[in-house]
């Protein structure tokens, strides 16, 4: 275990110190006093690395990351997991906008709420299938332009005044799946996305991820699974194919 005091340290120096520590074979890093430093864990591709963050990390946490596990013990900001390739990010609080922006692989677990545009343009390819599990509710435009991967939205704190997902859900979606616990209104869904029944194969995937979510955050698995899930998928893989040119 290697502790790094991040209090009033500029993000560039902090990230250099993290890399230097890893080069010195320190694989279990604890960052204390983090407050707003950008790009923590950016581009690190060592799967043995574990970074624990005390404080609120800055934007683009884990961007381009490929392997490490990041644990944030507080809230986090915008752009977490931007173009992340592999590894895991766990947030013990809420996060800001554009979570998992263009994420390509690995997994993200958020205990509470996420802001606008979660999983925007997330994508999958062959064995690369990014997964995002959200314990609370999502802001508007969740799954915007989503091209692949899996988003699981649990809404454990949803209520009449706080819907599980905001409006414009799945706008521009053309790949991947969004699983939502409970029912959602068609009014919030983009007209070219559809609600489907969840298959047995989907359920296995949901159960595995929810189990991991519940283990991480010490939440009762049975309580989470006491509601049915619905699946949101795109109507077509090219929803804008005829936007400028009239179709057949």
């Amino acid at each position, binding site marked *: 275990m290697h502790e790094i005091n991040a209090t009033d340290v*500029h*993000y*560039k120096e902090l990230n250099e110190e993290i890399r230097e520590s890893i080069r010195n074979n320190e694989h279990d890093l604890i960052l204390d006093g983090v*407050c*707003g430093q*950008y790009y923590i864990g950016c581009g690190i591709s060592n799967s043995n690395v574990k970074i624990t963050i005390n*404080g*609120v*990390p*800055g*934007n683009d946490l884990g961007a381009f990351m490929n392997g490490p596990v990041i644990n944030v013990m507080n*809230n986090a*900001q*915008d752009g977490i997991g931007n173009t992340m390739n592999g590894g895991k990010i766990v947030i013990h609080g*809420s996060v*800001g*906008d554009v979570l998992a922006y263009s994420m390509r692989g690995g997994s993200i677990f958020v205990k509470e*709420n996420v*802001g*606008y545009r979660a999983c925007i343009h997330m994508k999958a390819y062959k064995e690369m299938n990014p997964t995002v599990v959200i314990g609370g509710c999502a*802001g*508007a*435009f969740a799954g915007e332009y989503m091209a692949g991967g899996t988003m699981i939205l649990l809404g454990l704190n949803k209520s009449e005044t706080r819907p599980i997902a*905001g*409006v*414009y859900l799945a706008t521009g979606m053309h790949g991947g799946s969004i699983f939502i616990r409970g029912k959602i209104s068609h*009014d919030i869904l983009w007209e070219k996305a559809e609600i489907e029944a969840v298959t047995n194969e989907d359920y296995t995937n949901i159960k595995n991820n929810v189990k991991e979510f519940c283990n991480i955050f010490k939440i009762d698995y049975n309580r989470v699974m006491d509601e049915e899930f619905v699946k949101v998928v795109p109507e077509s893989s090219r929803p804008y194919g005829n936007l400028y040119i009239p179709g057949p």
Partner: protein
Amino acid sequence: MELSKDISGCGIAGFINTDGTLTSGIDIADSINLMKERGNGLGAGFAAYGIYPDFKEYYALHIMYDNEQSRKNTEAYLDRKLHIEQHGGMPTRIINKKRPIFFVYFVEPREQSTKAESEEFQSREADEFIVKLTMHINEKIDGAYVVSSGKNMGVFKGVGYPEEIANLFRIDEYKAYMWTAHNRFPTNTPGWWGGAHPFSLLDWSVVHNGEISSYGANKRYLEMYRYKCTQKTDTEVIAYLLDLIIRKHKFPLEKIGDIFSAPLWSEINKMQKKDKEFHTALRMVYGSALLNGPFSILVGFKGGIFGLNDRIKLRPLVAAKKGSTVYMASEESAIRYIVKDLDEVWMPDAGKPVIAKLTEEAYKNVY
């Protein structure tokens, strides 16, 4: 330390002590400095409310001059139009860079001047008089710009990083119940001293992250009401629109989001009859006051602050509470940096203003 500019986006921060407690400028400077990376040294500024209790009856004109001649011309004009209770150079620290001259004047309209010396100054209403005076100076007097013109408040701004501007204007020596701050990364418009935020008119002040794509439409609309956009920056229109819509038209502040960040027609069409009629009417009357494009703004006004996003939230904004103080900023860390153990943190919904005001008792004490 030298910064590499690989990211952009202005930063905004602000807070209000709703119990009227006065705080020095140190906290707000620390908060905006934490987001130093959001700017590039081409503009920063602060608005402070409650800083001139000894002159609270007077309009506090903060005026920026390019040179001594512009000061002389302006002061000759002010002498004709106003009673100047007190004036002087604004307290500053020495910096090693060319900068304009800053003066503060505590004024009230003179009886004879409000009685129609000329066609353009016929109004008897003091606020209206000050607005016209501000527009006249900004437009007609070369090298003079009114930075702020409210009562018991003031704006401090210029070209530099927030810490440089805070140091220049000695904002650590002022005490305010409410502060807002801006860190600028100019995109489409020049980074000059007058173009720094906040933009202010009377008690309104605006700091803004984003861009107002509708600037042209907003500007033409304002010109019909004799507001002159002279600061070469889109944000200016927000201050004038607020003055027109809230002060002059007496539209409720709580609903300003319905004009600035109006719902899309697709949403209006889904509304119940009464709401649909209301929003349709607003689109008809105030369509030209819609702020199009991505933005998050913090607006200071007499006794309060509000934060607002564009209707689909294309810029960040976080709000928080601790005791009787309400904070808003582009990033949560900027709030956490100056206050530990927040009671509550939340992300405002797009187009819905977060409003925080002084308590009635505090308002009476301050004003």
